[in-house]
């Protein structure tokens, strides 16, 4: 699958071998490596890419906001994939432990951050999202 063919360039190709996680998207709500998915196989199934996460051009999704605030982004090439993996994780486990966050990120390689601030950002996002849903309830 090549999101670039749809003029969506947010999803990055870091290895094209299914090993780095930079191209992670959500297919039917599950994080998958888009480089391992055939475009025809994905047709007609709901896909969320990084472009679809923020509610509007001027607003960020809480995960994105946390990534910016904590400086979990350096070169940014892995960020889209990291954030989609984080979304998958928090959708399935809204209050993950640090170990669970690390496990949830283990399919996303990063060479800049040592993952420390990425783990922190997801914790911050979980708190924000958890707070919001608690209020709704």
């Amino acid at each position: 699958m090549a999101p670039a063919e749809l003029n969506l360039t947010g999803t990055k190709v870091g290895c094209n071998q299914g090993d780095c996680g930079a191209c992670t998207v959500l297919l039917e709500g599950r994080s998958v490596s888009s480089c391992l998915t055939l475009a025809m196989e994905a047709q007609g199934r709901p896909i969320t890419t990084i472009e679809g996460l923020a509610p509007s051009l001027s607003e960020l999704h809480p995960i994105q906001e946390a990534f910016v605030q904590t400086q979990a982004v350096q070169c940014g090439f892995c960020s889209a994939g990291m954030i989609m993996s984080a979304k998958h994780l928090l959708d399935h486990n809204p209050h993950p432990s640090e170990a669970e966050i690390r496990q949830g990120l283990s399919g996303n390689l990063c060479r800049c951050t040592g993952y420390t601030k990425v783990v922190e950002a997801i914790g911050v996002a979980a708190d924000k999202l958890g707070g919001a849903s608690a209020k709704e309830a």
Partner: protein
Amino acid sequence: MKTNNPQLIGQSIPRIDGPHKVTGRAIYTDDLKLPGMLYGKLLRSPYAHARIKRIDVSKARALPGVKDVIIGADTPQIKYGNWRLVPESQDELPLAVDKVRFIGDEVAAVAAIDPETAERACELIEVEYEELPAVFSVEDACAEGAPLVHDISKGNVSLVRKISYGDLEGMFQKADYVREDTFRVHAVQHAYLEPCASLAEPDEGGRITLWTSTQTPYLVQCLLASTLGIPENHVRVMKVMVGGGFGGKMELRPWEFCAAFMARRTGKPVKFTLTRVDELAFGRRRHGMTLYSKVGLSKDGKLLAKDFQVMLDGGAYNAMGPTATFLCGTFGNMAYRLPAYRYFGRHVYTNKPPASAMRGFGAPQAYFAMESQLNQAALDLGIDPIDLRIINAMEEGDVIPEVATVSSCGFKQCLEKVRAASGWDEKRKNKKPGHGLGISAFSFISGGVFNWFNTKYNFSSVEVRVYDDGTAHLFSMACDIGQGTDTVLRQILAADLGIGIDKVRLTSMDTSNTPKADLGSWGSRVTLMNGNAILDACRKIKDMLIPVMFTQFDLNQIQDIAFEDDHLFVRSNPKKRLSFAECVYKALRGRRGEPLSAHGFYTPRNRGLVSPAFSFGAQVAEVSVDEQTGLVKVDNIYTAHDCGVTINKRAVEGQLEGAIQMGLGYALHEQFAMQGGRTLNTSFLDYKMPTAQDMPPSVSLEVETYEPEGPFGAKEAGEGLAIPTAASVGHAVYEATGYRCQDLPITPEKILRALGKLK
């Protein structure tokens, strides 16, 4: 120590480019598309060493959709290399002409309407090779009668560096304790997440615009122009976002040349994008080295002499190897007082992918040897390893002979801080089996002084323009490759002019529109050098604004003007104030419309030949080793470092955290499986950089000093931190198991074998 830093200094200002990067709106080179763009592919050598006898491109050319096919004979055949100061070191051609020197050496390039066609065309190029005997290790390359990788380099040694001072023999005589060790360290890769990509667009008059994933646009501009045989000003190099570099993107590369060359031939834009296989199998690496070290100490632990002899495995071309050869010798004596020192470094060609600069630039190797050896010496002398370092540590005002004067140094504080934070003393007293603590220290440069690129320009240059809407525009060739300089440089400018950081617009890294020059992002130079250039420009801007204040308020000569909170005011009477915007307006009027603009420059002068400033640090690693499987688990890392005054706290922490990942990979997991000259592990599945789950908890301890040569007292925080981990983990593994690693990486099998536990 200076304390009146503006508010912005030290703040964790979020990355300016953060929102773009987290929403996927950030554009990287491969995302760029131009009308009519062609896709380039490279044909590479399947042999480690071979003479090219014949190339036939007719079938490739005939394939529908192929627009251009080039081989070395089609090109101007002008050699290039970063060491313009020593022209004979420039040993590379974009496409091989006479022979190929490593598996992956570029032989031909194709431009076609789509990547698949380009790839098929490459498969249709027929090359007849005559295979030649090859050398794959420095020992083989230097052996009597070894085949020559380059005919002009006898014995395959391309460059030699010698350093010598003090009475070496006399000091060894005096020493109570002398030991000799030989260390071997391996090649690893930058493994930036963004594979290299370049897009060249032909302009009128044969000019070229090149967007490329680089950390040195100015170097690429100069070398591309000289290799194409056209004026420098005909080449415009720009970058969009760069997905990491770590030293791996700081040269002219064949695909940059081929994109530009074929764009000129076809009149169409040409883009090359490398694959991860290209990167891992054929890309630049950190030098593997063989390091012989002899040290002499007095019985009370004073370092007296060191004899350091290093062979660098340079691979097939010089690349940044000469610099690594120089710096490795410098790092061999940088952290400690050493009365006598001799260094003999040799850069050796082998038929492998070229090694080049990688985060630390000769330092991870030199310090692994130095620090491992010191730990052994400490044990033998019965001195605590941290005490041994404190006995010998550099201090402020110390002189590194023939190198530099250390004008700020928090080294001893770093050592004391990691001792306290790690619980060093108690834990060493109550040793648990399979468990150990290890120490290592480092010192690093803040940018290089030695002008190997032989630039005619200042090392860093900026232009600052200010406007009567209260904003400023910074033009800088500095190159943010993910480390955050676009944010930090704005912070420095905003802090000095006393305006909000949101008021600063930045145009960065466009060789046609940002002032000449900036040597790029390497050697931890940007914050110090570009920051100083900004301060120089700001001083000139202030000289244009201050007269307005003096006229407005009819001030006495002795008054001082402050720049804070988007205002200028009289320091002794803050009520006398004008907004920054108003002040610029009045100045513009006074200048009869001439815009307020100033250039700022920095070149280190009278700072020795190595670096204008030095950072220091120390690290304790705590590990557990499974004595049955040999697996090492790093339980904790404690790092203290002196990077001068911190400009952006979280950005500095990010450097440390990332450096530990790289250092840990170097120590434990990352290596190339080589068979002859062939790289076997060409995916991230088997090139094992640590994942989020492999990272230990880490404690960061800052020791703040004030570096007089740095902007607001800052110095390096980028590379030095990648240095200590191999030796600190190595020492901890020794404490846990008794296995002393002198041969990186530390693998489970090596541990078990050394302990006699692997049958």
